[in-house]
């Protein structure tokens, strides 16, 4: 198992360098002269050249890539022209909010989706299955920003149960950072009222963000469970008097989780992308909003930094899912 993890980790490193290379290439074939943008509309030719030199934009491409790569690996993602701060500083400020939102949304999708998929398979073609299908079909059919607006309208405005947007109330102070994740920090600092407030704020955006993943997880898990429940080893378990609950929740689920995990890994990527929309609706101070605002201002370094971070998170999520595969399936552990 250790070898399996090590190999996956090495692969992760290679993929990171590949990702950086792709980012670098895209930024250099994209139209527009970043030095000119950085210098501003009134800059003279000389000023543009000074900036070009300062950022190393006059060097040959491989040298530029080497500079970029070493900078990135040292955590230097350049400077945002719009905010005039280091991109790393900005990302550190905005990314934890997005990460927190995605994790809660994924947790919701998995914790609700997997049991619903299981139940749908067990009660296949009966009432409960149809009811669950209604949930999954409507979850994919509603665009997330529309679902977000509906939730705001009914739950926040009409019923007043949960706040409209933001990460915390305007007057509430963030807990002193440890992990930069508000929910975790509030718990670690013992500020339970802040924790409750943060939780109330995160529920609606997390529901909106989790809807498409929830639908996908329900459907994949249902299909896999149905297939696994028809396998011969299930007959063995039944023939030896093992309880129906154990057969479904342990014997079959573990087998069905392998394809379901693949779907969860893919959905991480979709979710990180989807935050752009949900953060807009819920005024969530995350990386999606930051990236969009940078992009419309032709502010390249933050866009690249944000893309790199999102890409890396996606890779990291799939790395962890690979490890989970190995843990679930002894055959995969050996094949590596």
């Amino acid at each position, binding site marked *: 198992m250790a070898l399996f993890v090590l190999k996956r980790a090495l692969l992760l490193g290679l993929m990171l360098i590949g990702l950086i290379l792709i980012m670098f290439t895209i930024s250099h074939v994209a139209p527009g002269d970043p030095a000119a943008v950085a210098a501003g509309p009134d800059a003279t030719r000389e000023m543009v050249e000074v900036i070009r030199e300062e950022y190393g934009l006059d060097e040959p491409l491989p040298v530029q890539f080497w500079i970029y790569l070493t900078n990135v690996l040292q955590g230097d993602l350049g400077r945002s022209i719009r905010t005039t701060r280091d991109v790393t500083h900005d990302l550190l400020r905005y990314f934890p909010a997005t990460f927190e939102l995605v994790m809660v949304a994924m947790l919701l999708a998995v914790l609700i989706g997997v049991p619903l998929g299981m139940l749908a398979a067990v009660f296949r073609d009966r009432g409960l299955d149809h009811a669950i299908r209604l949930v999954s079909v409507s979850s994919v059919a509603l665009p997330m920003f529309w679902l977000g607006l509906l939730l705001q309208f009914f739950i926040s405005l009409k019923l007043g149960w949960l706040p409209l947007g933001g990460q915390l109330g305007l007057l509430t102070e963030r807990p002193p950072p440890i992990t930069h994740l508000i929910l975790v920090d509030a718990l670690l600092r013992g500020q339970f009222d802040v924790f409750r407030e943060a939780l109330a704020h995160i529920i609606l955006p997390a529901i909106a963000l989790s809807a498409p993943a929830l639908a996908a997880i329900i459907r994949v898990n249902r299909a896999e469970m149905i297939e696994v429940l028809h396998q011969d080893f299930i*007959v*063995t378990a039944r023939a*030896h*008097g093992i309880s129906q609950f154990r057969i479904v929740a342990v014997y079959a689920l573990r*087998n069905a989780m392998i394809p379901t995990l693949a779907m969860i890994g893919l959905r991480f990527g979709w979710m990180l992308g989807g935050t752009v929309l949900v953060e807009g609706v819920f005024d969530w101070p995350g990386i999606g909003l930051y990236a969009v605002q940078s992009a419309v201002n032709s502010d390249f370094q933050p866009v690249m930094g944000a893309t790199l971070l999102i890409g890396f998170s996606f890779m990291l999520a799939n790395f962890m899912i690979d490890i989970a595969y190995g843990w679930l399936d*002894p055959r995969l552990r050996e094949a590596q």
Partner: protein
Amino acid sequence: MAGPAPLLELRDYSLSIDSFDGRLQVLDGVSFSIAPGEVVGIVGETGCGKSITVKSVIGLVPSPPAKVESGTVSFDGRDITAAGESAIRRLRGREVAMIFQDPMTYLNPLFTVGQQLSDVIRAKEALDPAAAPRTRAERRAKALALLGQVHLPDPERQFESYPHQLSGGMRQRVLIAMALAGSPRLLIADEPTTALDVTIQAQILDLVKELVETLGMAVIIISHDLGVVAALCRRILVMYAGTIVEDAGTADLFENPRHPYTRGLLAAIPRLDGSVTSLSGIPGSIPNFIEPPQGCRFHPRCAQAGARCGRERPRNLEVAPDHWTACHLFDGGVE
């Protein structure tokens, strides 16, 4: 039949299964009984209803789509025809155990042999109110003892192995160990050697024979291979298209087969002393179960069939001591 009270008894048991094309009349008036400690074989072509018979008896055929049309099943004097899931589960866990055809697919690939065997042991003890719950270590010891009993080499190591690390013969031994975990009174072996290499087949048959002799449980062996059944069983039931056509002692059946179908089956066994040309099959194939033939289900393929065979269902008749057959030839003729 005289003798001890039967352990398992089916009376006029008929079963149908709803399918996409219509309702399949899978079993039609099946009657037989198994005495405690008796070793009985059920033979017939693939698809004749051998497996379905025993699987439906122990509740392994989902219902719906399956439906008991008529008849009763009793185990140890208790009527279990309409027993609920929990009662059937108790029966499966404690008193009846089953081993299956293909050891490759009947073990869960993601759990070790030890985990699966310990789980079965725990399930069986949970179903037995008299059994004191064991500790994990005791369960492990019991599992290792069972693996030893089925002569699995190096049980300590195989306990930690996953099914894919074992050969087919070893997996079948593991499945047999699971079946023995609850000290069953009836063991059902559904084509236990069909998926194995010939040399391994012989080893598994030896094991089953040894267990039958030492443990004294009743065994039903289902096979399409008369050789396998003859080697192990004292009595053989011949099944055709969901009906029992003949029921006799093994030696008696081989020497004096009565039913035309049984004679056809025996003639289809290749013999070392005969030439290849003497090998004969039975013309035709298993009938459609949606609209099975009227009267005797075998009559469309039977060389000796007469007008009565297509009209009237043959009665099950004792043609010699303990030798029963359902054929008009022995019940007043076919015309």
